[in-house]
């Protein structure tokens, strides 16, 4: 109990800095498209139907130099852009292994998902299909590997997102229903969480983010429709969110990011919006309604601008003038949100 209070107090320390809901968030840049060409995302190589959900970009991360890294799940690569969306370079190609050979394959991914960048610019790519996290230099050269397939301590099954702090990297380990801690060079340090629907337990953990002080973790659960606030050793401080479409409610919360002022941005995938909260989980505002289709991962840069990985594209939201409005079209490809359609129909 005392630990939970301490974690929340640390999280709230940033609240004083958090500005009240300022001007409206508008789309300031958008880029991408469907295809294999540089700057595009997805290509349909995984087939139609349910797999088309993987055509959208995965994780998005802002590097210390202000460039934006975006995971291209279906094309098994990471692309780097300027903050206005100009393509710079990419790295990675496809390789899959469902034995133990993948340990030796570097510079290759299979359905990578999350991404984060540390203070030195090293890029951590979650290679979800090969059950590992790969650390690369800013230029794309392989540095080290965090974990490999298995359910023993330090091993991973379908890692999904990563948050890198000053000393440790925290990995969402979906298959083992836990969060694993590694040193930044890949040494296993411990884990927390277990399967279940009780407080602090995990069913489908999805996104993870660390606060600017590096001592509070925010973990979203896709199936429990909530965000959990943990200390870095796994002590549960609080949870927020419930299933629904109202303010502060979620339908499949996905990626999460913490702004420089400590406010928390959660991609509310099936409600097609991003919601912003105070560090202790009080609702502030909703962003991107009408502009987003399937927001998955989010990140915030040093100036407070929000980057959202959406349907075949990336959008940058800011509180400036913004681009001309463009309606978001949705062709019903996201099987994850099928039940939302049922819900809306019944609601009518």
């Amino acid at each position, binding site marked *: 109990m005392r630990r939970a209070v301490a974690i929340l107090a640390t999280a709230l320390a940033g609240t004083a800095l958090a500005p009240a809901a300022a001007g409206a968030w508008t789309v300031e840049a958008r880029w991408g498209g469907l295809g294999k060409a540089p700057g595009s995302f997805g290509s349909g190589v995984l087939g139609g139907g349910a797999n088309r959900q993987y055509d959208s970009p995965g994780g998005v991360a802002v590097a210390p130099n202000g460039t934006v890294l975006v995971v291209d799940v279906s094309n098994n690569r990471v692309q780097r852009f300027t903050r206005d969306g100009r393509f710079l370079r990419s790295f990675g190609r496809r390789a899959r292994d*469902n034995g133990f050979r993948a340990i030796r394959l570097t510079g290759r991914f299979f359905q990578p998902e999350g991404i984060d960048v540390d203070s030195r610019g090293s890029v951590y790519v979650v290679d979800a299909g090969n059950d590992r996290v790969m650390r690369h230099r800013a230029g794309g050269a392989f540095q080290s590997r965090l974990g490999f397939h298995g359910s023993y301590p330090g091993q991973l099954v379908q890692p999904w997102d990563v948050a890198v702090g000053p000393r440790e990297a925290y990995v969402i380990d979906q298959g083992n229903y836990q969060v694993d801690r590694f040193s930044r060079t890949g040494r296993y340090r411990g884990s927390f969480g277990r399967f279940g629907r009780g407080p602090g337990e995990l069913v489908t953990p999805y996104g993870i983010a660390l606060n600017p002080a590096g001592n509070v973790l925010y973990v979203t659960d896709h199936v429990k429709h909530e965000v959990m606030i943990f200390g870095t050793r796994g002590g549960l401080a609080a949870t927020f969110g*419930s299933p629904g479409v109202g303010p502060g*409610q979620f339908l499949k919360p996905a990626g999460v990011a913490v702004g420089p002022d400590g406010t928390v941005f959660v991609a509310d995938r099936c409600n097609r919006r991003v919601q912003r909260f105070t560090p202790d989980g009080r609702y502030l505002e909703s962003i991107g309604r009408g502009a987003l289709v399937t927001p998955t991962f989010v990140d915030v840069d040093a100036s407070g601008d929000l980057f959202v990985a959406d349907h075949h594209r990336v959008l940058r939201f800011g509180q400036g003038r913004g681009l001309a409005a463009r309606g978001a079209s949705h062709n019903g490809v996201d*099987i*994850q949100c099928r039940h939302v359609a049922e819900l809306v129909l019944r609601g009518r």
Partner: protein
Amino acid sequence: MNRISLLAAALVSTLALAAPASGFSGASVRGSTVSASYAAKYLLPRIQCPPRTQSTPRAGDFSFCTGRIRIYFRGREVARAPFSVRTFDSHVERAVVRRGARRLFRPGRRPTVTWVVRSHDGQGQWATRRGTFTVYNPFKR
């Protein structure tokens, strides 16, 4: 909380409760022959998870078969491993062989062992499957 959000919350709960729980058949070992690693430190069974293993009854909420495999020879446990495998997928797992049992799997021997896999899906439904396989050590004597 406004009326729409209350209605939505009620509908979500109703949908979750009304949908029938699908039967989970459990993970199992694929194949009848399993190889041993060098010095028989590990047995390498391929464990498969049945399709439509889910974390909720709703379509698209896929999950994992998570549990433990135990391998017995003449009633004694000789190896075990925790595992987690994606739905409709299979993966080779490393079952650690007990030190005293490694001689059973020396090159040239092909003992038949019994496996028991106890696993659960993302809805917390448990199932147990069992069967036998023959261990083959591909390394030279």
